[in-house]
């Protein structure tokens, strides 16, 4: 049988009923990687022997009628910025290409305890800096719907691995749209959580005031199951507040209240392609039919968000990247200079790719004497104005509905020569990242060229259950999310 659009929920039922075994399911995913990855390049590392060994353990638990829960025996891919003990973790950078962490990230430990099976570490833009996976030191990930186009980024490998049938779900990171945009480009469901909802201990940092960790999967319900396992306070991550957790999968299935859904006009501007506009507007009508009210509104500072983000996030990147000096991390230069300063210069010159150098320089510039007030401090103030926009909006509405991206997946190479154009690709996901609020990306249709289109829903901090509920009900009424990419057929 075909497993290529199998959800985690259905797989768990089949595993529990003994219709399939975790070993078959894992072997199927590994075969699918062998079949599709030479074309797609979603994986940096394939975890074959360990995955099969763990599947055998899960099979025993199912046989004894004692599975650990819904994720037991479920094959997942993991973005290659999460530390898994004794598995190479590269951040898609030459500077970490031989890094083998001796410990598990908190969320990896939680997934292991739940019985999940890791089949691959997936491709990303270098240190997650990008919107297309083109800045990876391990080559671009291609979109399973059209291999001439990008899979999106930075969690492009995670989204493409699900869309290629290589796994049933994945973990990604989202700093300015890096889960939501690749999910939209690959017809996958992706959740960006509230800042602080999920521990980042053991996950390689990009921009520390913005980075979040979240699930990608084939349905909102599956994202709820994954979130249930990974969310929560962690003594090892001082940015995780002790906000009570919800029973996300149960909440998601509750009857849909008559939510008021805001439609912010700034997200439907000229840059939006006609097909995206039509698909997102018809998705809004689906919610209207389910009893929700659509309320047009304005988030006036939206147009400043990309500027704020591309000051604050490179500033934080430049600081976080200082540890990659060839001594604390990184292999060091090939030829050892006499002088220590020269050692650092050479290690970083050889280790970082173009985009990392650009971002480190933008950040260093924004933080340097003479420019700090005009750029960094100014951006911190405008960030406050963007947060206030959302606070005002959520006084009147329960959620916001927008496109994820102004356009579908673009051609490989189309934007990589013009960094500013690449930065503008995240126009519609960046504002909510600055506000630290959650967002979900849901498949909502296709272009005439069969490229997926994504719908974004946003809600106030720590209300992920509302997004998952809206997503669950939307996916009960529609079937876009279960449509398979051509490569899987």
């Amino acid at each position, binding site marked *: 049988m075909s497993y290529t659009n199998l959800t985690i929920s259905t797989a768990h039922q089949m595993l529990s009923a003994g219709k399939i075994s975790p070993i078959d399911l894992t072997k199927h995913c590994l075969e699918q990687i062998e079949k599709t990855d030479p074309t797609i390049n979603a994986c940096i590392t394939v975890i074959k022997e360990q995955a099969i060994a763990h599947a055998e353990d899960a099979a025993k638990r199912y046989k004894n009628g004692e599975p650990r829960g819904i994720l037991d025996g479920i094959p997942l891919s993991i973005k290659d910025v999460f530390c898994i003990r004794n598995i190479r973790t590269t951040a898609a950078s030459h500077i970490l290409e031989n890094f083998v962490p001796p410990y598990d990230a908190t969320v990896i430990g939680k997934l292991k305890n739940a019985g999940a099976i890791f089949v691959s570490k997936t491709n990303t833009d270098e240190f997650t800096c990008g919107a297309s996976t083109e800045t990876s030191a391990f080559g671009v990930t291609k979109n399973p719907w059209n291999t001439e186009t990008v899979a999106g980024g930075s969690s492009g490998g995670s989204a493409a691995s699900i869309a290629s049938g290589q796994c049933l779900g994945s973990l990604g990171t989202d700093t300015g749209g890096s889960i939501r945009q690749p999910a939209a480009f690959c017809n996958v469901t992706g959740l960006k959580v509230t800042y602080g909802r999920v521990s980042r201990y053991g996950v390689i940092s990009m921009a520390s005031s913005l980075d979040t960790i979240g699930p990608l999967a084939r349905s909102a319900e599956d994202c709820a199951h994954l979130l249930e396992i990974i969310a929560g306070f962690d003594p090892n991550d*001082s940015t995780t507040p002790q906000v009570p957790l919800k029973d996300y999968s149960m909440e998601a299935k509750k009857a849909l209240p008559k939510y008021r859904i805001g439609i912010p006009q700034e997200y439907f501007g000229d840059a939006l392609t006609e097909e995206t506009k039509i698909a997102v507007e018809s998705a809004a009508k689906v919610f209207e039919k389910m009893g929700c009210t659509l309320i047009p509104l304005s988030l006036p500072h939206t147009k400043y968000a990309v500027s704020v983000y*591309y000051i604050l996030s490179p500033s934080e990147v430049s600081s976080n990247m200082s540890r990659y000096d060839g001594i604390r991390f990184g292999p060091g230069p090939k030829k050892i200079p006499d002088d220590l300063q020269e050692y650092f210069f050479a290690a970083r010159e050889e280790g970082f790719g173009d985009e990392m150098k650009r971002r480190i320089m933008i950040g260093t510039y924004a933080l340097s004497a003479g420019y700090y007030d005009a750029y960094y401090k100014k951006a911190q103030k405008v960030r406050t104005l963007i947060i206030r926009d959302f606070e005002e909006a959520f006084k009147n509405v329960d959620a916001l509905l927008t496109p994820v991206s102004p356009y579908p997946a673009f051609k490989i190479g189309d934007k990589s020569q013009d960094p500013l154009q690449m930065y503008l690709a995240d126009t519609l996901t960046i504002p909510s990242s600055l506000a630290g609020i959650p967002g979900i990306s849901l498949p909502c249709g296709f272009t005439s060229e069969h490229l997926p289109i994504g719908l974004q829903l946003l809600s106030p901090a720590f209300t992920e259950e509302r997004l998952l509920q809206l997503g669950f009900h939307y996916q009960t009424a529609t079937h876009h999310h279960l449509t398979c990419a051509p490569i899987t057929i």
Partner: protein
Amino acid sequence: MSISLEEVRHVARLARLKLTADEEARFAPQLANIIDYLGMLQELNTDNVPTTSQVTGLTNVTRADIISCAPRQDELLACSPLPKEDHQLLVPSVFS
């Protein structure tokens, strides 16, 4: 508010990046283009607006100072490609 080639060299030095002539020629106009775009923030009056540096509202988060033994010292040392001596890493000398 654009950035000159001189400034690109200065910033690269501050960031401990040694750019090749080819990289300088490529990055200078790209960075100028980006920094010009970022300049749009200047049109907003933010005189009485407080800054936001984080969104959790958490301050002074502490935990008990309990020593954990994971990962072990030898496991941590094994992560580094640098030569080892007496359970320590050998790094290049600071003073020549």
